């Protein structure tokens, strides 16, 4: 088994407005919970979109479980669950039907598995309601249920705590840590909520103006700084003029 779940190599993507990401290099170990921090427009979502094949990079590659996202997309994404940007299920379908759409791509998914995932994320009661009647938080929970439907080895979550109430955030943190501990699931999470990242992640990377300016373990950071927030601010300050 490969010890690296995700390998990002020289990843670059520039938009017409000269924003984007430049030469991102990163390795994520199997079973690790990696937090991706950065201000708005720093390139977090761009990186994650390239990681799951929604965007094409100008340069570089991403390998997931050893498979290139460019050359071997389906095998690379086979064991990946993800939420990218906002969760947008089909509004004219019910939660259950949306789960069925996802389930058809995976052989071993049955009704029981769908119900289990909807139960874990707390929306089983509303499984037969159409998505157009769902709140933002309920859509987010459904997105997470879809991401874990296939029992993936890697879960990529872009702002997973968006729209969740306090109870939902606590449940989500528990779910992430439990999956990581029990099933050795690897997580790649971006969030603005630095407190949640501090409580959940093993290692943190900071993206600023499209460049990865710092990667360190949570343990090391909290030994040298009073909080992850202080570490984040000091790294951003150091790179603000560059």
């Amino acid at each position, binding site marked *: 088994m490969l010890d690296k779940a995700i390998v990002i190599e020289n990843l670059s993507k520039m938009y017409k407005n000269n924003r984007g990401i430049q030469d991102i290099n990163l390795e994520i170990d199997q079973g690790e919970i990696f937090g991706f921090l950065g201000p708005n427009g720093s390139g977090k979502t761009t990186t994650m*979109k390239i990681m*799951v*094949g*929604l*965007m*094409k990079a100008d340069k570089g590659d991403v390998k997931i479980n050893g498979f290139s996202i460019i050359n071997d*997309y*389906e095998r*690379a*994404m*086979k064991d*990946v669950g*993800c939420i*990218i*940007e*906002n969760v*947008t*299920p*089909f*509004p*004219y*379908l019910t939660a259950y*039907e*949306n789960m*069925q*759409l*996802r389930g*058809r*791509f995976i*052989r071993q998914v049955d009704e029981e598995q769908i119900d289990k995932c909807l139960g874990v994320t707390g929306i089983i009661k509303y499984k037969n309601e159409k998505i157009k009647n769902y709140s933002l938080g309920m859509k987010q929970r459904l997105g997470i249920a*879809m991401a874990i439907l296939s029992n993936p080895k890697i879960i990529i979550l872009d702002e997973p705590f968006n729209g969740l109430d306090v109870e939902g955030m606590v449940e989500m943190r528990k779910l992430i840590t439990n999956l990581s501990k029990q099933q050795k699931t690897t997580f790649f999470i971006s969030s603005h909520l630095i407190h949640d990242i501090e409580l959940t992640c093993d290692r943190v990377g900071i993206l600023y103006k499209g460049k990865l300016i710092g990667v360190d373990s949570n343990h090391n950071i909290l030994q040298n700084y009073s909080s992850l927030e202080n570490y984040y601010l000091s790294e951003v300050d150091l790179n603000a003029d560059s």
Partner: protein
Amino acid sequence: MQILKAVYINEMFKISKKKKITAVFIFTIISVIVASIVEYSLNNFAGIRITGSSEFSIMVLTILSYSLFPLFTAFICIDLFAGEFTDNTIKFTLTGPASRVKVFLGKIIAIATFIIANLIFAMVLSVIVSLIKNCIIPNLLKILISYIMAFLPIFIFALVVVLISNITKGTTSTFMLSIFVFLVFNGLTLAFPQIKSYLFTSFFDWYRLILGSYINFSKIFRVFLILLGYGIMLFTAGYYLFERKDI
């Protein structure tokens, strides 16, 4: 193959859940009934005989080929492409995971299935109405071949809408541009008859080539090749844009 099958079943499932589908069948029924009433009135009250028993199905096909069939097809193509780009639901299919070629192919096959289902429904309905009206069994083989032939130009129009969906941003602009292309091509056919044989819109009734007493096979083959050429070019261009699109 399993992933392509999953994409196709998902697309058909999504199409079946849309309210537009009910509207499509209701409008088709209304069109056939109205055509039947008009024909009956002209035959019996005005003394004008416009169709025989088998021609009624062909008349229905001619009316629908230039009106409702392209319109319904455009709606479905827009929903499956431009609509999913606009509301970002395309992300769910792409990260399914399914490679873009399979997603594109699955959607195109689903659109083709919709067109075929629509044609079969109109054909069966028109034959039943024709039987009730005339109490004579129409020439089913001719009708069947005509409806099969009608599929190709409508499918080509679907590929045009798919191409436009991959160029424009938004469902309204795609719809307007698709209708514009359809009208301009039809206008060009009328204004410049010399270029008629190069425009796919002038072949919406190419099944008429098999209806006469003399069937010109070489002309049928030539038109088929022109439509096939359109199909290959539009499919390739649509896929190229779909593959390169950043979501």
